[in-house]
């Protein structure tokens, strides 16, 4: 019986897998040789390439989302009052600007921590202002409410349990938000073990 000892990754019989072509930059200095001196590409370059593609994809998703929501927030300047049943006010210009900055901060935090884009649901609030709700899963979410008087409230839900409403300053939001993400990530990892 003839045994095929080839280890070349180009041998389709031995290695039928999806082939991703790295860019020149990514494959630079990664050429190696197998036992038969056939040049092959180091698989670590593939992994690096996949990681980069994945990271770029996440960032593209975030950037597209952020762009569309900034445009949406801008459009609220023309919403007018009486946009929903009952007394309802158009968000103030200041609350719109504050919401844009807060959304930008939140998105940057998520990208930095390699989080996939959660569902982020936005709308004005009838009493004047804007809120957005980050929904990580059915029992974990964070609600930011930016009132017309520029106060910001942050309400967190962890495993279905709600925290007290916290009035927050933009200078501490990043820290509180990072803490939430870290705890959520640890819980998620823990759940995947048990």
């Amino acid at each position: 019986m003839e045994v095929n000892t080839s280890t070349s990754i180009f041998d389709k019989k031995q290695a039928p897998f999806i082939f991703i072509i790295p860019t020149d930059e990514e494959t630079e200095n990664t050429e190696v040789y197998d036992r038969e001196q056939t040049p092959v590409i180091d698989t670590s370059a593939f992994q690096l390439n996949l990681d980069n593609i994945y990271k770029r994809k996440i960032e593209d998703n975030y950037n597209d989302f952020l762009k569309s929501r900034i445009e949406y927030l801008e459009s609220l300047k023309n919403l007018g009052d009486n946009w929903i049943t009952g007394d309802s006010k158009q968000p103030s210009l200041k609350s719109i600007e504050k919401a844009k900055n807060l959304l930008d901060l939140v998105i940057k935090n998520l990208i930095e921590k390699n989080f996939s884009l959660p569902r982020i649901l936005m709308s004005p609030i009838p009493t004047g202002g804007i809120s957005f709700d980050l929904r990580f899963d059915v029992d974990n979410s964070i609600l930011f409410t930016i009132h017309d008087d520029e106060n910001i409230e942050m309400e967190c839900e962890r495993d279905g349990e709600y925290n007290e409403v916290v009035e927050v300053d933009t200078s501490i939001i990043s820290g509180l938000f990072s803490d939430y993400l870290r705890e959520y990530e640890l819980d998620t990892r823990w759940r995947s073990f048990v």
Partner: protein
Amino acid sequence: MSLIPDGEVLFRYAKPNAFPEGQSELPTGIFQDPNLSCDWKKFRMDPYSSFHIQEGKSVVVLINVCDDIRNPKNPKRKGEIVDDWKQEIFHDPITKEDDPIHGANGAHSLIRGKKKKAVVDALIANSDFYQRT
């Protein structure tokens, strides 16, 4: 004040440009109103007969009245009822004198109480919406 029992349906109306394009779920913000105004289906069988539709509020939200909205719990579903989050859901008809512009609205009702996240999440979980095209 007559309380609205569980199982009843309330309508709320919003303008479509209040929401981001492509957002296919109910956002929290539309319920963050301590006096949440709506119409009781019992007195308005056809939601499109409301003056809100003529004013361009073509997104119709249907709220299914239930105990989860009336008495939100912490943690949700399985915890204890939080007194501060309780909601009063009652019929509050409007007379012609109350609203000379739109006239009387015999279906008008209110969901009264602080709208903390737990309350709003209960409202979202028990609501649906559609848009008139």
